[in-house]
């Protein structure tokens, strides 16, 4: 499978959008070489705002820019673009439904070496809890491009979660990205795996192996974590022996919460795979962390067989 980087895809898309729409402005807090907003800065220095290492001011400043009829993209690592300026997002951006797009880069465990302080296990939960916020978690570079473009078309606050490391291409090139739509990437009739972000490729690998063992598996890429139409989740789970959720995020407030809430009262068994209410830690590779927290195809297969 072809591997691509979501950050690079994002950075290039911002430049394209900058060419198409002069109302787009970009802010960063001294991480532009990681978030890849450096590409936008090179081409549009007047519309790029280096805000220093001051994330709270960056969010509110972006709110101000949006009040002059601009689309403001605010960038940092997910842990710093959601947790540190939570109040600025809530008060200044979300209550007023301002057109600010918040990018959570190097999300989840993907900043493997930097440890718990830099790894976001709760960013989706924080953003989902804020009224008026839309939350997108694209699974690969292709979907990242489409999600960022969809965020520009949508007038209001959006959070987009982006992985630091290369991920395999999964999302169909010719598929339209629609905010709120869960995507069936593979159909099956025994169980459904709902997966988010980097975990979608693990879910697909698990489905391959389950198929060999006679378990027909549907894989759903849930890339919109809010808003979610409960019925769309119910339809994809009904008639199955059970469902599994898989996310590189705390089991509190993310995909597990979305699916278990949607399926309440339906009597369908649900298993959840995610980070069990704990922080991350340093490791020498991303894969070592994913394995440590059970975020692998192997673990999905095992849990699926137990359903």
């Amino acid at each position, binding site marked *: 499978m072809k591997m691509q980087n979501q950050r690079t895809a994002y950075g290039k898309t911002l430049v394209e959008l900058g060419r198409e729409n002069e109302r787009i402005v970009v802010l960063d807090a001294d991480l532009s070489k990681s978030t890849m907003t450096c590409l936008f800065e090179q081409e549009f220095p007047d519309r790029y705002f280096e805000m*220093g290492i001051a994330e*709270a001011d960056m969010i*509110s400043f972006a709110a101000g*820019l949006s*009040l*002059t009829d601009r689309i403001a993209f605010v960038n940092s690592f997910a842990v710093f673009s959601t947790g540190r300026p939570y109040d*600025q997002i809530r*008060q*200044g951006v979300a209550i007023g*439904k301002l057109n600010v797009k918040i990018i959570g880069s190097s999300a989840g465990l993907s900043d493997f070496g930097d440890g718990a302080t830099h790894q976001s296990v709760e960013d989706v939960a924080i953003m989902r809890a804020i009224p008026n916020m839309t939350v997108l978690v694209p699974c690969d570079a292709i979907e990242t491009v489409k999600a960022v473009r969809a965020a520009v078309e949508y007038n209001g606050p959006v959070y987009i979660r982006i992985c630091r490391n290369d991920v395999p291409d999964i999302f169909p090139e010719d598929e339209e990205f629609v905010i709120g739509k869960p995507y069936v990437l593979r159909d099956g009739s025994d169980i459904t795996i709902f997966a988010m972000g980097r975990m979608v490729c693990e879910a697909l690998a698990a489905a391959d192996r389950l198929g060999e063992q006679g378990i027909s598996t549907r894989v759903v890429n849930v890339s919109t974590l809010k808003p979610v139409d409960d019925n769309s989740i119910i339809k994809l789970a009904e008639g199955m022996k059970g469902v599994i959720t898989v996310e590189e995020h705390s089991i509190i407030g993310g995909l597990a919460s979305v699916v278990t809430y949607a399926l309440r009262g339906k009597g369908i068994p649900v298993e959840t795979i995610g980070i069990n209410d704990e922080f991350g830690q340093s490791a020498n590779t991303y894969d070592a962390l994913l394995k440590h927290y059970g975020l692998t195809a192997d673990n999905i297969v095992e849990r699926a067989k137990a359903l």
Partner: protein
Amino acid sequence: MTIQQLERKAQEIRLTIVKMVGPGKAGHFGGSCSIADVVAALYFHKMRHDPKNPKWPERDRLIFSKGHAAIAQYAALGICGYFPEKELWNLKELGSILQGHPDMNKTPGIEANTGSLGQGLSISCGIAAGLKLDKSSARVYCIVGDGELAEGQIWEAAMAASYYKLDNLLAILDHNKLQATGPIADRFDTRPIREKWEAFGWHTVEIDGHNMKEIVETLDSIEKVKGKPSIIIAHTVKGKGIPFAENNAAFHNGAMTQEQFETACGILSEQGVM
């Protein structure tokens, strides 16, 4: 307007504040009355604005970073005719367009959602930067509190405004020397104030925030400063104009008795035009 007319407008704002809150209900009198003279000078002398077209792109903007003093802005907006006067008397009632803190989507003339202290100055900086990109001549005015200066974000904004040379931004510090729980000097001293702003690269002027002539002359002269943001440190009295509330921290967010309400209305009516 003449200085005397502007002084009357300030008293009209204060009287409106008193009537909006009414007896027996808590309201942020102190920090609203301390800034009333500046607010009168802005809406009735300095700012280009059109109450019939609140979203006019070329308008000057006023943002209350100290959002709890919103009633001073509501009073001025009501007097200007941004909304029907009757809305003033529904302050903070369920469904009212006048929330406890400013809400841009509910109140015509309100520019941003503020109230969580420390954020309004950053928002004002972003608006000023956006107006510069538009090559607009519109200016941004931002009211900041002296207790609010304890918020670290104020100083992040101060650096950003200076770095981006936001000379279309004017902050006005309502230096009334009292925070909710007592004198700033005793509770959490944010002084020295002038030296801080100068060190952050701002053009800094100190005035008597209740001397209308000085307010007007400073607002007029300060817009000639180029290449850096400006701040007016307005020395004020918390609760100014309402004798029992003056310099009284209890009226940061206090309630008047019926007797106090009548006293305040009497004093302000004599001095105002209503």
